[in-house]
């Protein structure tokens, strides 16, 4: 039992560590300009926001958009 909880905590501690290191790392390598490097597959965030808002507004949040695909 002890072993089990130790492991679980260790792993999630490392996940925490990894996450923090990655955040610093990513912040350094791509200071906001990564969008430009990456082939832009993505529909800009605000558009998505607008769409989602629209949908949830219209359906009183009964509906949500799960995927939006380019054509």
């Amino acid at each position, binding site marked *: 039992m002890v072993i089990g909880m130790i492991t679980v905590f260790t*792993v999630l501690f490392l996940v*925490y560590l990894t996450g*923090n290191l990655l955040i610093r790392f990513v912040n350094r*390598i791509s200071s906001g300009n990564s969008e430009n490097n990456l082939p832009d597959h993505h529909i800009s965030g605000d558009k998505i926001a607008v769409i989602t808002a629209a949908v949830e507004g219209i359906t009183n949040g009964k509906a949500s958009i799960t995927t939006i695909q380019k054509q």
Partner: protein
Amino acid sequence: MMDLLEKLYQMTAIQQLFESPETLLMILIAFFLLYLGIKKQYEPLLLVPISFGMLLANFPGGQMGVVKVDETLTLYQIASQYGIMNFVYYSLIKTGFLPPIIFLGVGALTDFGPMLRNLRLAFFGAAAQIGIFTVLISAVAFGFTLKEASALGIIGGADGPTAIYTTIKLAPHLLGPIAIAAYSYMALVPVIIPFVVRLTTTKKELLINMKEQDKLFPSTSPIKDLQTLKIIFPIAVGTVVSILVPSSVPLLGMLLFGNLVKEIGVSTGRLSKAASDTILNAATIFLGLAVGATMTSKAFLNVETIMIIVGGFIAFAISIAGGIFAVKGYNLFSKKKINPLIGATGLSAVPMASRVANDIALKHDSNNHLLQYAMASNISGVIGSAVAAGVLISFLG
């Protein structure tokens, strides 16, 4: 003519209903589970297939119930001699194939964003696995073997595929009741979490507003490029987990791969759609039916099942409490307070636990929206229980 009618009668399952009335009981249980799944909307995606599979399994002649087979038989021989349901069970379930496949789909539906924004909270996804190990030990005291006890305890992980995968590896004969317990309690989260919260927290604690705490003590490293981060994260975590708990990789590796193809975006969109839609849904049907098919009266109607039902609930409750007390402990030493509900959601049972926690918080303060924070510990709770499963499998498997 007379003995033709005799043969006709033999063809039916009527005889058997008289000889073994427990069959009738199983049918009633199946009806009850169908009622919960359909009318009460308890995890219908799994309870409906499970209970229908259970209904069909309890009549012989249809060969729709899972039986013990000589494991040297080929899958073809199993199908010919024991019917299609045993074919499905021995090719997709007992091989341990479907739970990782379902994790693949779950990963493609998971968003690690909230967790990345509040990484601290990931710890409570660890604390809320305590129920697994507490019940494990108690179960041994109650006469379960270590393997059986582990399978029972894992119900406290509040994660269906993980519970099923662990049970297949350690105590396949308990698959039916454990799957039912796991999914039923996950469906009962809206009842169980408020119950435990009421017992363990004060109104004052529930009023802690995470957003305000963040304003008071802002994060040191804001995320500049979430998109890239979300792509690298599953790869990094996959590596870490592979090194530390290789036995959890079939589950977590698939989860993280599904998440990766989702986060990459359109260029792997075909894979993401396949994982989260076609593969996941088909897998759910076969998993549900086959798990239900293991619940024949012989396998289900015994004291062990009752102990699993009870033990599963205790594991659930302890896990929730574990998360809550971990938060209380944290708050003793930290100026930046955390709402204990964030501990409760460490249980996992994504995303329902988070919604329930959010509702409770809003009931006490209509401005206290903590859904995003709850999701952080909630998702880490999935990793937590998968890791716990890995440990148990590699120590006892």
